[in-house]
């Protein structure tokens, strides 16, 4: 569904590379987590997929079409986008925020309203209760639900997420992670999600791609990364969830 072919990105005309020669393929219906520290190039990689950044070199295909051949605005309207800042329009109601992309695409009023009702219900915000509220009246978790609803409103096949749950408290985050995974599988969405939280990546993603200093170190399922790390950094990354699991395991034994 998404192909990155020898993609490079430099912000200083080639003196250094934020993303160095990266190739990656994401299948239809797959959720891929891009993990790394800040400065690893994960967000830049994500942003090149909907042309918030343009690659310096290489090719990116979405559904078989080169993104550089497409108008950036039209491309973005067909790809859902969710990020940590949420960025709801504060001067618009929940309904108008969710309706933003279908409005841009020129849907009819009736279609827009029906679809808003559908996606609000889908993300757990009953339309009749929430449609006329404004963002400042909502909790952080509810705001991000609206963010997800907005991203899904125009029925995209592809969704890009940049640390979508990063600003939420742990309990809200866990609930939303699980719920989002359910929605993603139900709709068969292809998702690329940037995160720096390995636990989140392991819980949600089909495959995890690890980046460091602009290099893609390894791509694989959580068990591949855990059992056959290709790089010391990957081993180090897996150390924390591994120890947490061992400690949890020990605690459960004590009780039993």
């Amino acid at each position, binding site marked *: 569904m998404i192909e990155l072919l020898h993609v490079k990105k430099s912000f200083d005309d080639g003196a250094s590379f934020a993303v160095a020669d990266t190739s990656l393929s994401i299948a239809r219906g797959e959720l891929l987590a891009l993990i790394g520290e800040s400065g690893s190039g994960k967000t830049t990689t994500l942003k090149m997929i*909907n042309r918030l950044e343009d690659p310096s070199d290489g090719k990116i295909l979405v559904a078989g079409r080169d993104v550089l051949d497409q108008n950036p*605005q039209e491309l973005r309207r067909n790809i859902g986008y969710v*990020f940590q800042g949420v*960025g709801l329009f504060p001067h618009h109601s929940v309904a108008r925020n969710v309706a933003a992309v279908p409005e841009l695409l020129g849907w009819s009023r009736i279609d827009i309203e029906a679809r808003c009702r559908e996606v609000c219900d889908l993300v757990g915000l009953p339309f009749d209760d929430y449609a*006329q509220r*404004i963002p400042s009246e909502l909790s952080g978790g509810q705001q991000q639900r609206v*963010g997800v609803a907005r991203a899904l409103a125009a029925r995209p096949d592809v969704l890009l997420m940049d640390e979508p749950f990063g600003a939420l408290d742990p309990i809200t985050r866990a609930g939303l992670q699980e719920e989002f995974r359910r929605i993603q599988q139900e709709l068969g969405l292809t998702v690329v999600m940037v995160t720096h939280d390995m636990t989140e990546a392991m819980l949600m993603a089909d495959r995890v791609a690890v980046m460091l200093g602009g290099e893609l170190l390894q791509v694989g399922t959580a068990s591949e990364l855990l059992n056959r790390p290709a790089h010391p950094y990957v081993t180090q990354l897996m150390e924390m969830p591994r120890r947490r699991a061992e400690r949890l395991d020990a605690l459960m034994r004590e009780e039993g």
Partner: protein
Amino acid sequence: MNPVLTEQLLLLPDYLQGHLALTFAALGAGIALSVPLGVIAARSPRIRHPLLAVVSMIQTVPGLAILALVVALLGGQIGFVPAFIALTLYSMLPIMRNTVSGLEGVPSDVVEAARGIGLSPRQRLWKVELPLALPVVVAGIRTAAVWTVGMATLSTLVGASSLGNYIFIGIQTRNLTAVTVGSLAAAGLAIVLDALIGSLQWIAEKRAVGVAMRDLKRSTAFAAALSVLFSLALVLTLRPEPKPDFVVGGKPFTEQYILASLLTEQLEAQGLRVEQNIGMGSDIIFEAIGAGTVDLYVEYSGTIWGSYMRREGNPGRDEINRVTQRFVSEQGLNPLGLAGFQNRYALAMSRERAAQLGVSSVQDLEPLAAMLQAGGDLEFFGRSEWQRLQRLYGLDFAQELTFDAALMYTAVEAGQVDVISAYSTDGRVAAYDLLLLDDPREALLSYDALFLASAAASEDERVAAAIAPLLGAISDEAMRAANKMVDVDGRPVAEAVAYLRASLN
């Protein structure tokens, strides 16, 4: 009611109309220019700094200087247009600066989201950035509105009618009632505009933080009602007036106000519709009559000789009258004849001080000048007459101080200066018991009052008929007494006109 106050209040509709028209036109143009420029500046730091620097610089130039510069740039055009341009320039800084900071204050995650979901740059601006920046932009417009109302009072000086007419004419004629009426009216206008735009700003703020419109209904209705009332008042004051047949002009001092009123009454007695445009400086009014925007006013031969013809020397009263009348005729204007009196410069001292020093003529000052302080009006020390006076009499005063004319008289009375450049028909000469010093070497020019008409006015027989009874009919004493009534006794101009009419020769 107090007749002085009644006289002033009758002028209010005209002045308010001029003031409102200027303020709204300038503010509208200011918004139309500054918001787009602010948007461009916010987008490009490379443009922002030079643009804001230029606009800030305009702001630091005193308002009066901007008006004068615009008049000069327009080749001497006076009235609404130069005042409008100057006010527009003046209103730009707060609007542009607030547009820039309003746009910069839009939360970056909202802008990123707008990009990320596929809004084009234009859609981002109209749907997201401008609505969110609006409260700050409106706050800038509010500041600009208050400034513009204040600065519009200055436009009187370039011949655009405004509430400033009250203030400038009031200061010159020592009419505190007029100054008070004008100041209160301008302040009241500023307060109303401030409140009105303030309520718009409040609504914009609420909308920007997303208060649903249902909660805003009452305040929106309130603001709408206020706006409707205000527009209604505006429309009523701006109702088109019948176009006058002629415009009578006047420079900004008492004698000119009295003469302009006298001319107006004379023309109206002939059945003509007359508008007064008073308070223009010498150069501006002479340009205006040449351009036909003023039709009739009283000029002085010495001013034509010295200021417009830039002639040096003093060939004597008759020769000056002959040469200056030929000059104005060559300019396409019509000299209709002399009024009979002269309002010339004369050195004056308090009678007491003059007796003490034994002075009765300028000649007597020569040995004493080094110990004496001289006071002059705003232009006297810059005139060639002053240089000639110094040269012919060998005068070298200890100090030369420049005053507003009204303050110059109080300064000589209080003994702060010893000698001043008085005007021979000034009522204050009599009121303060000043001695006008003789000028045996004829250093000072003669200033015969001359009725000057535009080409259009001089072709109308009714104008000639209106002026005829005034020709040679006004004596120095009568003019001085009329000036004294207004300047010293605080009587309304209309009374001075009646007095002058009764004492025509």
